[in-house]
């Protein structure tokens, strides 16, 4: 019996013809890719697979690189490992329910996503939020921008070997998260904004705490600046490395600090102001070359500008209501919900079926930490969006990685990827 089985096994294993061509090895393919310039397997160069679990890849990306010694001859970048169908979810959740999903886009600056989403829905519904809510939203967005940039320049430095620099900034980032925690109780996934208002009002004295934090952070950023910016090795690693010039940036639709590093003077906070960005003074730093160093330097300067905006906001903010006077979107107070029948029904209707949004479409571009973040919403009436499209800057920036690292060294790949600050959550959505 057992012999029989064995013989069956053996014969079956022997009978399966090994078809090498299916494995995709060079030389044994039926189809020739000889004319394809982008084919990685066209000769015997070493191909390494960087990612999706490689420590240099922040998040799950994959970059297949063909190496000639240490030089990357060509590469092919892949994404989609963190795809969670955010846009489809936007069409299956009510407008209120979708707020939590926006946190998970760019998780380094979740507040900016919340704000951008709320702005878009409010534009669709024609809601105007009160002054205080707008100021708080603006402050929240700027705090998030600083934390995002701190992470970006910090991680970029870690990749290039300067670990202490990262932890200098990390302290302030933690303190910023404590400020955010005081706003909404969460540190990372904030879900702070509501359509037509905010989750909670900022606690007593919060503005002053933000101001103190901003002043302290400014010192820390100066310290970080003096530690790294004039370091010779840092210059060697970043200057003239992974250049993405103005034309390329235009072609690849770069926005935000990455575009400004290449000399595109574009900042939506100044050019198409939403919130109260037209009521505060700030500069838009730009650089010329568009290499890793320029992206780093632009971000460092932008943090200083954001801190200055925060200080101005803290001085201008006044007490007042945080909810727009609109019955459709106003979440009923708990007092009313627990004590009155109408309140209870309102509460249930709000959370179970959501509020109706008039027909139409809206897109609000918002200057997120990495570039233009926009929610394009098409409504055909009803509580759910007909189409929810998210324009995340990382998606466009990641497309630029391959041309950016062509001809660069393996060590530059990590520097380049860190400098454009691609966030997996926002890229894959």
């Amino acid at each position, binding site marked *: 019996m057992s012999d029989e089985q064995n013989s069956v096994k053996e014969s079956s294993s022997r009978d399966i013809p090994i078809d090498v061509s299916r494995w995709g090895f060079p030389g044994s393919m039926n189809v020739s890719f000889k004319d394809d310039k982008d084919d990685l397997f066209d000769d015997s160069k*070493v191909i*390494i697979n960087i990612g999706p679990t*490689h*420590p*240099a890849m922040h998040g799950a990306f994959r970059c297949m690189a063909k190496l000639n010694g*240490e030089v990357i001859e060509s590469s092919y970048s892949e994404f989609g490992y963190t795809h969670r169908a955010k846009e489809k979810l936007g069409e299956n959740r009510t407008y209120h329910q979708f707020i939590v999903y926006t946190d998970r886009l760019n998780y380094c600056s979740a507040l900016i996503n919340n704000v951008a989403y709320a702005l878009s829905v409010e534009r669709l519904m024609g809601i105007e939020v009160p002054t205080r809510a707008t100021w708080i939203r603006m402050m929240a967005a700027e705090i998030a921008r600083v934390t995002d940039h701190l992470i970006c320049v910090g991680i970029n*430095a*870690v*990749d*290039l*070997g*300067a*670990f*202490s620099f990262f*932890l*200098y900034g990390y*302290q302030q980032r933690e303190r910023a998260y404590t400020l955010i925690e005081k706003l909404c109780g969460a540190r990372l996934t904030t879900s702070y904004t509501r359509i037509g208002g905010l989750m909670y009002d900022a606690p007593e004295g919060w503005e002053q705490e933000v101001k103190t934090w901003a002043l302290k952070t400014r010192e820390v950023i100066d310290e970080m600046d003096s*530690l*790294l910016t004039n*370091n010779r*090795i*840092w210059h*060697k*690693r970043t200057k003239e490395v992974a250049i993405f010039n103005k034309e390329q940036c235009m072609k690849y639709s770069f926005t935000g600090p990455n575009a400004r590093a290449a000399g595109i003077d574009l900042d939506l906070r100044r050019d198409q102001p939403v919130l109260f960005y037209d009521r505060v003074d700030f500069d838009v730093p730009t650089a010329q070359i568009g290499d890793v160093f320029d992206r780093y330097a632009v971000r460092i300067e932008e943090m200083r500008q954001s801190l200055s905006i925060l200080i101005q906001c803290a001085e201008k903010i006044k007490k007042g209501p945080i909810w727009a006077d609109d019955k459709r979107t106003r979440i009923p107070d708990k007092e009313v919900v627990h004590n009155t029948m109408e309140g209870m029904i309102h509460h249930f209707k709000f959370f179970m079926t959501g509020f109706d949004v008039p027909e139409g479409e809206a897109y609000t571009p918002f200057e997120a930490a990495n570039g233009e973040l926009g929610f394009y919403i098409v409504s055909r009436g009803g509580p759910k969006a007909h189409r929810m499209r998210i324009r995340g800057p990382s998606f466009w920036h990641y497309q630029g990685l391959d041309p950016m690292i062509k001809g660069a*060294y*393996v*060590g*530059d*790949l*990590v520097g380049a990827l860190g400098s454009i600050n691609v966030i997996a959550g926002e890229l894959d959505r």
Partner: protein
Amino acid sequence: MDFPILWMKIAVVLVGLLATVPIMLFVERRGSALMQDRLGPNRIGPFGLLQAALDVVKFLFKEDRALRHTNQAYFTLAPWIAVVPAFMTFAVIPFASSMDWDGRHVSFQIANLDVGILYCFAIASLGVYGIIIAGWASNNKYSLMGSLRSSAQMISYELSMGLSVIGIILSFSSLKLGDIALGQGQAFFTVFGHTIPKWGVLIQPLGFILFLISVFAETNRLPFDLPEGESELVAGYHLEYGSMKFALFFMAEYINMAVASALVTTLFFGGWQMLPGFPYLHHVLFGSAEFQTQEIARVGFEALSFLSKIAFFMWLFVWVRWTIPRFRFDQLMHFGWKVMFPLSLLNVVLTAYLVMKGVL
């Protein structure tokens, strides 16, 4: 040959070097924490002193996986090839001067070889074989790249390292490290009644800087840690290693650091020559004691001076690691061949000229 004393010396050196590893683990962790405004591991034992001991236990109990895709024989051999030369180098380094004990002449150096410093370089460069074999036997592209980087780096920087020491050899007319350490006790010049000893760093400042940089490259520490290059090559040559095999590589790195610090000390900072203030302290404390006690105390002070100097350089290694970024590979080679190499040649020519003129 006095074997009992020789064995004792070997035991002292071995134990001392082995003890360096946990101490440096502690210093590196808490030191980096100090620099980075955080606490570091502080839960195990007083000030987290026992953390290193627990790490050793962890390494011992980890499963030593036999990876199918590796070349087992070389894979097992490689860590040993890395760690053994690291220990061997210390054999020629004097850690105190000599003394007479019980009618016998005792020198505090395992072997005062005639080739001295050449032996150091010869053995130290064997360590790279461990790394290359590890990279090759791992059968992993990242490991292989790490080991290739390592071999190129070691060869390039060994050149400038060797050349930067020639100045010292010329100045003291000896290859023996014992003689070099002894020679640095001579008076160099006098300032305001203080005699400045003829330490290597004073007569060979350029040589010292070149040697120090080369030593950083040889020990694979930041800014030259490209063979590991954690962000690019994941962990480089020891990517596939785990448990005690990895621990051996880890040990080799720290012992190499200790040996490198000892070499810098011996060649450029007077070796066991006492630190300023120590002769006075010795005179005050033991001036009236018996001759034998005085001698023992002197050797003690000398060993202490040597250890403090080593400790400073070990700290320097940690300090630099947590301060500056890493080079890129082409920049490293560029720096080694186009900056370090010509400068060390210049140093040799300059020193030879000065020695010929009788200045040094």
